[in-house]
């Protein structure tokens, strides 16, 4: 308990969190501070590139083994299953209609790569090692949840439209997935020698870039909360805090079964706990346009993301070091 508090305190006072808070505060105060869309996209390209590449290098360093394959499968399963859990919880805790509930549920099965990155950097500053392939697991967990969400939404209904073939390509070849996996593979192929070449681009400035990115996330989340606060009924807010805890418990169980290291356990917990705000929203706009984007975007970005960033990550780390490993 002592450790978790001190961990939370350290975490809350890290530049990363503070820049997120700055973004939130600026948008609550209605400052016109903003990051241009193109710059925000460039930052996210940088993060995916760096995190994917470093993951690949780390796997090339340690070799592929059964554990990688099993963890990947576990990740896929978690991504399929967690939306069902979330949907059940939503039915109990909130009055959302089926379509909205399915859309929200899909977000919680998928993952937030920035939450993952933030967790990684906490591990790093604590000097805790982790399985390099967790990046691949993160990529694998992005999409399956979308399937579950669509199934939840259309189950028992005459599926008038049939899901178009184009949609699947779009979901699986989503830009962020392709970049993350591609960079991972390139990191795997080029290994530590390749990394040495581009280290001063993707390693040393990484944390600083992350600060800027989180400033932007704070601005966007704050704007969402400000303009869409009305959709956030108490039950929904509560869901946004409880679902990550439930998700992380599933992640913990899987990690223990898999025998992951404490670092890997913590990352799988974080992935399970986090909610998508890039891949899934775009898929939902296409496939479930009747679902209200304010609900799932505000919940994912305005409630669950800050919760994980501030309290969730230290909590998952404490639990992972206690039970995991």
């Amino acid at each position: 308990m002592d450790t978790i508090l001190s961990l939370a305190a350290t975490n809350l006072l890290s530049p990363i969190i503070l820049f997120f808070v700055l973004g939130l505060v600026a948008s609550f105060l209605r400052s016109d501070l903003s990051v241009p869309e193109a710059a925000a996209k460039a930052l996210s390209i940088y993060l995916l590139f760096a995190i994917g590449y470093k993951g690949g290098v780390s796997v090339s360093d340690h070799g592929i083994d059964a554990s990688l394959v099993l963890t990947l499968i576990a990740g896929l399963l978690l991504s399929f299953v967690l939306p069902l859990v979330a949907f059940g919880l939503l039915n109990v805790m909130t009055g959302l209609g089926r379509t909205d509930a399915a859309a929200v549920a899909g977000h919680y099965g998928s993952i937030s790569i920035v939450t993952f990155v933030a967790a990684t950097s906490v591990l790093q500053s604590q000097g805790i090692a982790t399985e390099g392939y967790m990046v691949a697991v993160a990529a694998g967990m992005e999409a399956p949840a979308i399937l579950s969400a669509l199934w939840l939404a259309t189950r028992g209904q005459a599926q008038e439209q049939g899901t178009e073939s184009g949609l699947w390509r779009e979901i699986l070849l989503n830009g962020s997935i392709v970049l993350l996996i591609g960079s991972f593979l390139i990191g795997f192929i080029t290994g530590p020698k390749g990394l040495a070449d581009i280290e001063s681009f993707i390693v040393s400035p990484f944390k600083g870039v992350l600060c800027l990115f989180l400033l932007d996330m704070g601005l966007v989340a704050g704007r969402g909360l400000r303009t869409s606060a009305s959709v956030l009924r108490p039950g929904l807010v509560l869901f946004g805090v409880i679902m990550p805890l439930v998700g992380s418990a599933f992640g913990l169980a899987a990690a223990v079964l898999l025998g992951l290291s404490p670092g890997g356990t913590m990352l799988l917990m974080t992935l399970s706990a986090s909610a998508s705000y890039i891949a899934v929203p775009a898929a939902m706009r296409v496939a479930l346009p009747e679902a209200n984007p304010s609900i799932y975007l505000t919940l994912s970005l305005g409630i669950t993301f800050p919760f994980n960033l501030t309290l969730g990550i230290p909590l998952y780390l404490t639990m992972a070091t206690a039970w995991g490993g």
Partner: protein
Amino acid sequence: METSTAKRVEIIIESPMESRLTDALSEAGVTGYTVLPVLGGSGRSGRWSREGQVSRAGGMVAVICIIREELLDGLLDAAFKVVQRHIGVVSVTDCQVLRTERF
């Protein structure tokens, strides 16, 4: 300057639907269109802005199509099928165009 009558169709639609719309237009035989970026907007689903967005989910685009009058119905049918379940606005204006042979 010799001009002739045509229709200017403006379709404001969510970014993730852009390629579906333009594919539908192509299928309906409409091969000329121009896509403009949209910064933000407001509608029944509230206000939004593109600033700082990473995802395409939050954005919209405006597709402008200038066509001969007789093609209008085909275009609107095609567009309607795509926008039907989606947010977005379709408007049609009368216009005059130069270089008629191009449309």
